[in-house]
């Protein structure tokens, strides 16, 4: 064995692995608590979220004058327990948020990869639709779709998926275009790999990170959109307890100063969205340094 062979025995340490950065515990905890509430809502919630006692209308939270421990966070305009509705509302937001994000993410990622890698007319068709749909403000587009299909939780998921897949497609395609020019993709062709193999083995794993980062950031957007749709009355149909719907109801007591009906559901939305964004930001730095500037 000559010198040129035996050259490399010392490995530098993991060059690219950076310091283990602290996990964002606060947002993870918040999301975990909300998830637990959503899963065990039936057990945890003290009252039926959909049935109210008219005699108990507009009860303030327990610590205010006139409040009672029976309704820790007070009651709404038809006497329903706010705490129970918030707990069940977490379920709605979680289910709608996650399914819509995953639905949009899968569709968008797949189409983005196909458009980016195959190019040609496939790319033209997918990207022209993407561009035109991106031109529409997401909220109004969703309202339009909701006006056509009518409100239901299932429809909301489909609508949000239809509206938001374009974001993934755009980002993923852009990334694929640059991946496609990477030498390791060229070498895979030289090695005789088929297009399917290349997309599966060399392209997909390298865009998954961006897709996941985008998904966490989209989770917040989707939840806000769902709340807005429900607030406008084209989202989750009453009397289901969605946070957006609660805000719309809460507006009825606003001028009378029944603050808890407005503040509390909003705080829930904010906490959830904030947590999703914080985790998304952290993931972005962690998984994909190129996206830091996004």
């Amino acid at each position, binding site marked *: 064995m000559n010198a040129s062979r035996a050259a490399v025995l010392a490995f530098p*340490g993991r060059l690219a692995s950076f310091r283990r950065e602290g996990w964002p515990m606060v947002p993870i905890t918040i999301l975990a608590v909300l998830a637990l509430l959503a899963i065990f809502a039936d057990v945890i919630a003290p009252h039926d979220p959909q049935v109210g006692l008219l005699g108990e209308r507009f009860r303030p939270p327990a610590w205010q004058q006139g409040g009672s421990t029976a309704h820790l966070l007070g009651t709404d305009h038809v006497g329903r327990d706010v705490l129970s509705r918030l707990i069940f509302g977490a379920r709605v937001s979680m289910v709608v948020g996650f399914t819509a994000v995953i639905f949009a993410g899968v569709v968008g990622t797949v189409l983005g990869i196909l458009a980016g890698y195959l190019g040609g007319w496939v790319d033209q068709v997918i990207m022209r639709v993407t561009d035109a749909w991106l031109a529409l403000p997401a909220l109004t587009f969703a309202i339009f779709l909701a006006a056509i299909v009518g409100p239901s939780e299932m429809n909301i998921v489909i609508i949000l998926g239809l509206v938001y897949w374009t974001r993934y497609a755009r980002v993923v395609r852009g990334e694929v275009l640059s991946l496609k020019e990477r030498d390791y993709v060229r070498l895979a062709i030289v090695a005789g790999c088929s297009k399917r193999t290349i997309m599966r083995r060399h392209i997909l794993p390298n865009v998954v990170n961006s897709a996941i980062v985008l998904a966490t950031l989209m989770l917040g957007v989707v939840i806000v959109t769902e709340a807005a749709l429900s607030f406008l009355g084209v989202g989750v149909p009453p009397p289901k307890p969605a946070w957006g719907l609660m805000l719309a109801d809460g507006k009825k007591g606003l001028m009378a100063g029944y603050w808890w009906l407005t503040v509390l559901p909003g705080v829930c939305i904010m906490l959830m969205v904030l947590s999703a964004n914080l985790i998304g930001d952290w993931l972005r730095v962690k998984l994909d340094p190129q996206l830091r500037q996004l």
Partner: protein
Amino acid sequence: MSETDAPLLAVEGLTTHYVSARGTRVTRAVEDVSFTLGDGETLGIVGESGSGKTTLALSLLRLLPPAARTIAGAIRFEGENLLTKSEAELRHIRGKRMAMILQDPMASLNPLFTIGDQVGEPLRVHEGVSRRGAWERARELLGAVRISAPDARVRNYPHELSGGMRQRIVGAIAISCGPRLLIADEPTTSLDVTIQAQYLSLLRELQRAQGLALIFITHNLGIVARMCDKVAVMYGGRIVESGPVRRIFGAPAHPYTRALIESIPKLGDSNGRLTAIDGQPPDPAALPGGCAFHPRCPARLERCAVDRPHDTAVGDEHRTACWLHG
């Protein structure tokens, strides 16, 4: 101190470290570096990636990134220690008495301002020349770097000019205030061979015309051979050998320098084996103890792994840090 005796630039024991965000990791990018440079001389600083040569250049101008700090040493430029200067005082030195050309001259021009504006800017700031006067001088400077039709070019935006012209313009900016020292940090790595030759001959012309001292920072020994009077070889943040170019190429004292010179293929003698240096350049954040080169050194002694060799004179102006000569 009389200006005639002191060298133009004397760097003594310069040490610059990078400290990671939490202060847990220290990268000794530049460690105890000393050299001098006289008026009109050309010094080549050679090193591989991670050897600390760019950090050295930025330390000289005191334009280090926030994570880096010069923690020891002195930089005497025209008799004054730059390390004790305030930011405002430094501004009067940068661009006026000491200029620098960056790695990517093509990206160094601001896309939104005209050539005339950018070339004349140092004059307006440092010498208070009027807008019109700066414009006039910019035109002369473009002529000085051999750009044809300077009257039209001053009005152009950078993207309207070819790559070669943009490099010349960066050269024009560097000499606009008549500096005494020009630092060029790998100014030709991104260039094609023939374009590189153009740029090198332009730099040499400017140097002769203006009587500039020049520091050339590069990984390429060929550039040093062509351009420089003196050379300093860096490895692991330290200067391992320095001296006149002919001496270093003729009789290199440090095993690293010798291996580097021998590892380059030479035109005309093909088919022989090249002398390769084993192993990899060290990670600047985790330098080996003793002499940083010892794990790769073909002539290492036992003490090389333990003790750091001292800087020793091995000839007229020729110094090296190696136990073979200690």
